């Protein structure tokens, strides 16, 4: 009972959400399963932004930088462009995570050093870097240039010469499900830990923390790098299901898209950000069939409504109401 109260109860929303997701393939066809795979990856990407923005208070408008780095590193590694010895999904994923985090560490050291850049300035600088990198990738012919890298192989769970390649969407789905679920549970645990307390305090009053002896730089870097690592993982998983790494994965459009998913869902609740990504993608596929390109207008209006009327998010607001009623804290 105590275990229930202390450990399990507050993780129930995440467990129920992912439990239901796991059942969906029983009822839908192959097309929707492959769509679900994209949703899981986008949801993972949204989790990364929710962590750094909603919990860490760092508005990164160029989150696709890390998604794109993860995507390209995974593509280059598993296509054997670095070395045939490294042609392995596990190595690819590890390198993708590592490179994204390393780039975040480098970038963050400049952004947060000294007094640091905050708020809108930080947003604009990160956005500019995303645009620069998109241009760079479009002109880097060794990495496919504007056309990107085609024929990226799917995840291969085998090792030591045995191949278990996930060409079908169903096994890919459950593999992605395990990965994304683990990250989601891990993040839920993290934001409830003492580290989560520090994130809230650095978000609300970073200057105060210096007078308790904290290094603001280290704290901000830690959450920035962790978020980048998760975004990099999402990007790496994306190319394994899409088979294609292109400059759009690193640029402006995807950066703003993920921002809208997370804002609509609710940036301060991980689960809401995750569901926000999925809900927006589903809405996109339905609405764009009916309205064509005008669906963007609907998305824009929804975004404005959510920012003005429900700044906590369209999904986070009802979620936290339910949570309060059941006395569960939803993260």
């Amino acid at each position: 009972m105590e275990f229930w109260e202390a450990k399990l109860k507050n993780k129930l929303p995440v467990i129920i959400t992912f439990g239901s997701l796991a059942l969906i393939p029983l009822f839908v066809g192959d097309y929707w399963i492959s769509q679900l795979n994209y949703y899981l990856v986008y949801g993972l990407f949204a989790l990364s932004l929710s962590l750094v923005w909603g919990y860490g208070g760092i508005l990164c408008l160029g989150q696709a930088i890390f998604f794109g780095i993860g995507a390209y590193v995974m593509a280059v590694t598993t296509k054997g462009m670095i070395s045939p010895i490294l042609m392995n999904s596990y190595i690819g994923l590890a390198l993708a995570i590592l490179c994204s985090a390393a780039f975040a560490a480098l970038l963050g050291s400049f952004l947060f050093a000294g007094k640091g850049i905050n708020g809108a300035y930080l947003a604009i600088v990160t956005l500019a870097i995303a645009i620069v990198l998109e241009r760079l990738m479009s002109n880097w012919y060794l990495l496919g240039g504007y056309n990107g890298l085609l024929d990226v192989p799917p995840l291969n769970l085998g090792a030591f010469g045995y191949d278990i390649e996930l060409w079908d969407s169903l096994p890919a789905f459950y593999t992605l499900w395990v990965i994304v679920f683990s990250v989601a549970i891990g993040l839920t645990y993290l934001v409830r830990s003492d580290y989560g307390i520090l994130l809230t305090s650095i978000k609300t009053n970073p200057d105060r923390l210096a007078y308790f002896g904290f290094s603001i730089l280290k704290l901000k870097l830690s959450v920035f790098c962790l978020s980048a690592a998760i975004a990099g993982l999402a990007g790496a998983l994306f190319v394994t299901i899409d088979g294609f790494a292109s400059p759009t994965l690193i640029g402006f459009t995807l950066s703003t898209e993920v921002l809208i998913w997370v804002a609509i869902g609710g940036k301060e609740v991980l689960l809401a950000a995750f569901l926000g990504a999925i809900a927006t993608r589903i809405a996109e596929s339905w609405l764009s069939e009916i309205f064509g390109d005008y669906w963007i207008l609907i998305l824009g209006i929804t975004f404005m409504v959510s920012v003005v009327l429900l700044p906590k998010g369209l999904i986070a607001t009802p979620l936290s109401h339910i949570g309060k009623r059941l006395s569960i804290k939803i993260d």
Partner: protein
Amino acid sequence: MSFLELRSITKRFGGLKAVDDFSLSLEKGSLTALIGPNGCGKSTTFNLISGTFTPDDGSIHFDGIDISLLPAQQIARLGVGRKFQVPAIFPELTVFQNLKVPTLQSKSYFSRSGSNHMLLEILSQIRLNKKSDTPASQLSHGEKQWLEIGMILAQAPKLILLDEPTAGMTATETAATAELIKDINKSGDVTILVIEHDIGFIEQLQCPLTVMARGQVLKSGSFDTIRNDKEVQELYFGKEASAHA
């Protein structure tokens, strides 16, 4: 050398000397108040000790170390805790979580807290034990002041700087705060320097005073000596008295 020693420090802002050849030394375990009219350089002095600014001239030694040029974060790690004039707490966190924040500095983020016992003691010391799980945003102004004092205790500093700890408090709260500060000082391990405007509060503290005017030391001594000093009366008490009359 004294525990805290400011040796003729000067801080200029443009043409203005906010702190001008100011010296002060505190013995270990002492309780001292720093008073003076608005704009006399009290808060700037705190900013110089805690590392917000660095002095243009002179030096600051704390526990044998020259801290004049160190950044705030390192000075805090050496054992200087500072309470701000406007309570600087974390409104989104609960009272207990607020107290926990300073303890997280010296250990790994992920370890389970072993210092809960100490925090519970602080909680009752600052009279907030019934509000442990209340969000700090819901506290009264006086309670927020106490919470910040509690956070500084959780930091376990050797020197505590209190910038107007009773600002916005009722008379009862002010009296309780005086008791709290004396209680903290009683052990003799903690040195305290208080900036205060409220003369009634200083009287309750029963501690030596340094009066500051135009960035310099005007007088130092016991409460009674200072109260009976003509120059100080003119500068400070006189004005106060006439303002309150």
